[in-house]
């Protein structure tokens, strides 16, 4: 099974993909920072940033459907954070600003993740003197996330092929079992990975 929902298009060939990874990482971070700090009502900035990002996305040849899909997938998170501002007396402008800021930041990160291979980003972090342990943990996270999803899916399928009557209460119990088993298995795998690292000289 192959999972590449995080950065499916990070290895395309386009002018944006060919830009130095450091430049992309720093400008993405700066843009997110600016978006977050921008005072409410700076309409010109939001319009400019949106247009800029759309141009970048178009140049990167990432399918627009993919970008839109990812955006919709993450939008509930933004909505969840912003929704409470509606209940304030003058809440609507704040709500709209928060939604715009969140959406722009996510769009920036989607474009970054899909134009820059993760290994390159890690390399940069390492050379930028980000603590080695943190970079290692990030690398391991990226590597084993896919395996974890695979394993969960396999267990779920195996479970399903022995489920004959689908009752909702039972289904929730099954999911709970799979999740807890997954946790146990990942701790055991973590032990084996650690052994493999030590076997090649990690201290």
């Amino acid at each position: 099974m192959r999972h590449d929902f995080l950065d499916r298009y990070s290895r395309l060939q386009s002018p944006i993909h060919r830009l130095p990874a450091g430049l992309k990482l720093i400008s993405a971070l700066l843009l997110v920072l600016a978006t977050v700090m921008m005072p409410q009502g700076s309409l010109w900035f939001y319009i400019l940033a949106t247009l800029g990002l759309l141009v970048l996305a178009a140049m990167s040849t990432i399918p627009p459907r993919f970008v839109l899909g990812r955006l919709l997938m993450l939008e509930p998170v933004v909505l969840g954070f912003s929704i409470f501002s509606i209940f304030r007396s003058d809440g609507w402008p704040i709500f709209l600003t928060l939604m715009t800021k969140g959406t722009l930041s996510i769009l920036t990160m989607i474009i970054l993740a899909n134009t820059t291979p993760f290994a390159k980003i890690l390399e940069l972090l390492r050379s930028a003197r980000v603590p080695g342990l943190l970079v290692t943990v990030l690398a391991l996270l990226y590597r084993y996330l896919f395996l974890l999803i695979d394993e969960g899916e396999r267990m779920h399928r195996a479970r399903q092929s022995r489920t004959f009557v689908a009752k909702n209460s039972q289904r929730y119990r099954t999911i709970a079992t799979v999740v807890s088993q997954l946790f146990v298995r990942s701790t055991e795998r973590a032990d084996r990975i650690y052994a493999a690292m030590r076997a090649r000289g990690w201290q």
Partner: protein
Amino acid sequence: MSAIISVNDLHFSYPDGKQALKGVTFNVNEGECVAVIGPNGSGKSTLLLHLNGILPDTPSIPPSCTVLDLPVSQGNLPQIRRSVGLLFQDPDDQLFCPTVYDDVAFGPQQFGLPEETVRKRVTSALERVDLAGFDERSPHHLSGGEKRRVCLAGVLACEPSVLVLDEPTSDLDPRGKRELTSLLAGLPATKIIATHDLELVVRLCPRTILLDNGRIVADGPTLPLLSDEPLMLRHGLEKPHILLHSHPHG
């Protein structure tokens, strides 16, 4: 010839109380290729993990294992892990880096070699396993056979004098098995191979150790040992087909 690995009355119990090894003793000489066979749960993997000091968690005193005349003790571990290359059973446990290059380079980098030497070692290790040009690929996009060969490259890049392999051919298709077998045959290092693949044993290992229930049941030349049908059946194994009739692939 001198013993490169010597194991003397090795006992080991897992924290849950399961006795995995109950007094294992053997020597391996330089250049030998030894198979360790036995049923599931007989202690093969546990034994292999002792050969470079991954187990026990704190080395026993006095150490039961000696590698290259060094007792497996805390102080000797860096030197021992450098000389003993361990190939794990599940490639996904061993391939923990985001790219193939990083993974093969991991060992040499841990030794603190200069980046130029590391690069050379990675290139030559990948060439030896027929994966030249795979540097930038992600391990989770490789096939099972490719993953296995990347693992082997990661071990070879450390230039170990002893190779310890846990089920190197499991999950491989017949061609993958044949290729890996001939790859291993071409490596000059001393080899210890735990496996259920008895054809690999017949092709590669002149000597076999049969392990069952944490004890060595038999230790001797491969052909007579594997041909002893009553012995093999008693320990959950069987006489391999390759010894019953001739094989088209030679």
